């Protein structure tokens, strides 16, 4: 089992989205829209094809985003399961190694990355880490 197949890397991420909602209307969404709904709205309004922010990310073959609100109940006699958080599911198939690709995504689409992951748990820590990676690369 591997994320790497030849030169291609398959990245799969699950990022929890904060529970809660907007306090005021913003970003095209009404007040009290949940953060998962806002994230989904933003994704659905990203540009398509060469207008997609991911078009600027080097070495990307294919990628996708979707918001996972809950898992599906299969019906009796299966047991009922439910998620306590929504998740931003992001997958990408790209050429090369993970860290350079992530750095390329950050460098090429910083504002879009901030916007897409804006309502995810732990974003601030992530951005600080990406910022420090960028700093260390610039210094080397």
């Amino acid at each position: 089992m591997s994320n790497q197949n030849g030169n291609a890397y398959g990245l799969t991420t699950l990022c929890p989205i904060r529970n809660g909602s907007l306090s005021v209307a913003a970003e095209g969404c009404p007040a009290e829209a949940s953060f998962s709904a806002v994230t989904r709205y933003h994704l659905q309004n990203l540009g398509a094809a060469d207008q997609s922010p991911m078009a600027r990310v080097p070495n990307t073959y294919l990628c996708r985003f979707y918001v996972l609100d809950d898992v599906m109940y299969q019906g009796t006699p299966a047991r009922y399961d439910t998620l306590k958080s929504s998740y931003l599911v992001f997958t990408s198939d790209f050429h090369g190694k993970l860290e350079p690709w992530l750095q390329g995504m950050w460098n090429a689409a910083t504002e879009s990355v901030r916007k897409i992951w804006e309502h995810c748990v732990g974003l601030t820590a992530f951005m600080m880490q990406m910022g420090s990676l960028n700093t260390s690369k610039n210094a080397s």
Partner: protein
Amino acid sequence: MSNIAGKAYAMNVITPIRWYTAWINKLIFLVTPWIPNALNGLLTLSLIHYARWVIVRPNQFPRLSPDQPKEDLKYTYMFFFSNFNGSWAQYVDSFSSAIPTGLDAFWKWNVKYPKSIPMEPFHAYITFNQFSTDHYYNAYPMAASNDVKSAKRVRDSLLSFDLRAQDLSPEDFFSQYNRLLLELQHDLSQMDQSPVVSLSAAAVAERREKAGLAAY
């Protein structure tokens, strides 16, 4: 929101596995690439750009803050992601027809999996557990997987020809170049839209036309 980008379709399926059988699924994925000819049916289909299966245990759902509620799941979950050419129905039917035993091996331990044959219950199972994509990006929307394979054949053949042609006379070069073109005739073409394969693909094309966008 679209599952379609050019000729590629993004399928997302999430299915539960009993935690005590999840290790069997992991073992199957681990050994399958090493079994001779196990993936031949899949490769022959030639529909797929990339596909992956990811098994996530309940305690592997990320919890990044004490403020985030801890998941309390009863099942492990198998995430399936596929990028393929053609319509949903063509894809699912192709798998069911060409590699039914392979599908059953990968999904057998998933809760209430109906087996890949007969097709209708299998269609219903996939439809029920499929999640729509909110944003899908394809770097080469007009390139089907066969176009990519053709491009690779053309590149490899040209590089080989370049080495052989270094010391040829003009007449021999002309003759061998024509032979090369003959050998590559099935791989040389312009990429363009495929015929409409589904109502979804037709809707995407119509929406783009109304918006004044190029087909892709």
